């Protein structure tokens, strides 16, 4: 009997949990997603505290292209610089470029998506047709085009990532706005005369948040690959920067001589992108937004 009441009590406790706790419990059950969450957290800490054993631009011509060792975990590059330190610094660059670019794209895209989905009519048509045109170009080509116009450099890579993220967010937010608008409470608020702006941001926007979080996470992964690709092609960071893509680009010349120069920066890109993608998958399963 006693056991029984204990179980009952536990069940009652469970019922009073807030949705936030319930969601995190659901999320933590997914092992892969949890691991990737902590991995991303680890990367962020790395980016903030920069535990670099060497100065990233400290050259050492007596020790160039050396293999990974106890001294230089990931080896050294053609100027004898410590690759591990440069990769750690590169974490900061990559995450900053991706986060700033995607955030700007998400903000602008969400606003456009809310407008298109809420007001419909001509604004929707103009916004969505423009999105269709932008989305018709493969992502990387669009980014190359943008960088070709505004010139190379990391800042411009951020701008390119922001611009080509806009249509994606616009589309997703518009479709969830349309879905939420159909719900009863929005109609009810409308009928009692709540202002458009208040309705948009108080009632409709919160409903689009799950979809926003999921695609935001996924886009971060894409953005990191795009930034690295641009740098690799020579449109992004200058080769002297400890940017992962630029490191690969200069390491290319030493293929066969110093494969570690290629292996580690690429591995960093791969694991980071994988982390964001798996985290996005886990979030999608947990939050279950209706993405089209």
């Amino acid at each position: 009997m006693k056991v029984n009441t204990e179980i009952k009590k536990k069940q009652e406790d469970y019922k009073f949990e807030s949705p936030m706790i319930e969601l995190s419990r659901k999320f933590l059950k997914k092992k892969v997603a949890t691991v990737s969450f902590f991995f991303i957290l680890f990367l962020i800490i790395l980016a903030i505290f920069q535990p670099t054993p060497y100065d990233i631009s400290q050259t050492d011509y007596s020790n160039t292209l050396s293999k990974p060792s106890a001294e230089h975990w990931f080896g050294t590059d053609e100027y004898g610089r410590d690759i591990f330190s440069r990769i750690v610094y590169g974490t900061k660059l990559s995450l900053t470029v991706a986060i700033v670019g995607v955030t700007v794209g998400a903000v602008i895209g969400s606003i456009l998506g809310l407008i298109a989905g809420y007001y419909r009519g001509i604004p929707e048509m103009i916004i969505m047709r423009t999105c269709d045109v932008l989305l018709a170009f493969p992502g990387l080509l669009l980014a190359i085009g943008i960088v070709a116009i505004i010139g190379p450099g990391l800042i411009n890579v951020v701008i390119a990532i922001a611009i080509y993220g806009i249509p994606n967010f616009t589309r997703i937010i518009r479709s969830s706005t349309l879905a939420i608008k159909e719900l009863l409470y929005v109609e009810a608020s409308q009928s009692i005369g709540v202002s458009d702006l208040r309705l948009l941001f108080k009632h409709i926007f919160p409903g689009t948040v799950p979809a926003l979080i999921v695609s935001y996470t996924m886009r971060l992964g894409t953005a990191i690959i795009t930034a690295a690709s641009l740098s690799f092609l020579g449109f992004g960071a200058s080769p002297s920067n400890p940017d992962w893509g630029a490191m690969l680009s200069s390491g290319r010349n030493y293929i066969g001589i110093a494969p570690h120069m290629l292996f580690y920066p690429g591995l960093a890109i791969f694991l980071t992108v994988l982390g964001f993608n798996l985290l996005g998958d886990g979030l999608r399963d947990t939050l279950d937004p209706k993405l089209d």
Partner: protein
Amino acid sequence: MRGYIVKRLLNMIPIMFVVSIVIFLFIHMIPGDPARLLAGHQATFEEVELLKEQMGLNNSYIVQYKDFMVGMLTGNWGNSLKTGLPVGDMVIPRMKPTLILAIFTIVWSVISGIAIGIISAINRGKWIDYVVMIGASSGISLPLFWLGLMLMQIFSVQLGWFPTTGIDGLKSYVLPSITLGAGITAMIARYTRSSMIEILKENYIRTSRAKGLSEFIVVNRHALRNSLIDVITIVGLQFGFLLAGSVLVETVFAIPGLGRLLIDSILFRDYTVVQTVLLIFTFQFLIINLIVDVLYGVFNPKIKYE
């Protein structure tokens, strides 16, 4: 069916028109003066002005656009600003490697992606399914230029099985094609898997089992035909990825294709070449979309072409 294809081809004309305007504006937004570039550093101001006049750069945008379009349509694509050669002579030989790479890649990656997806779906929850899912997530997250460099390091440099760079027979396409197709295979495998899992729950699958059909026929005849309808749309989207990816792969493996030409031309502001390559890319993209739409209809009897 034929009427539909003709209609779609006619529909491409206004789209190409809009795209040509976009490309024209895009080219003219790229900073830098092509005349100065062509004339060289030692050229005087007068020489540059003369060149500008000759190239029509002093005309209004409308006149320039008209000249550009007339040139495009009559096959007079102008001369490269970098080499001075007719653009056609530069572009046409570059098409072959890009096309071979694209066709090669799409064929193997679509077939293997679908096969892997099916195997994963019918073994759902078993270890082979987990291996496939981990592989697919990794494939999607792999930066393909890195994959290319790693493959090159192992198979060309260390094992010497394939040439490192450049084109030397069909063998040279193996590593680039694996590089380009890995992500596509992963995407298609993932999509096929989830589509198959849903379809295997359908009532008509139960019917075909109740008929006594073997599981092989149930999966490969009844389920696969339905899931191909879903998969084909994703395959269509992969072509965009293929175009963008070929730019990177051609850079990594030093393949003299259109993608590499585009990058080099943008870096050099060789805008006559850039605009031609972009128009070819767009045209290619539209044709592929048309093929995908037609295939979609072939697999889905509910679609009627009128």
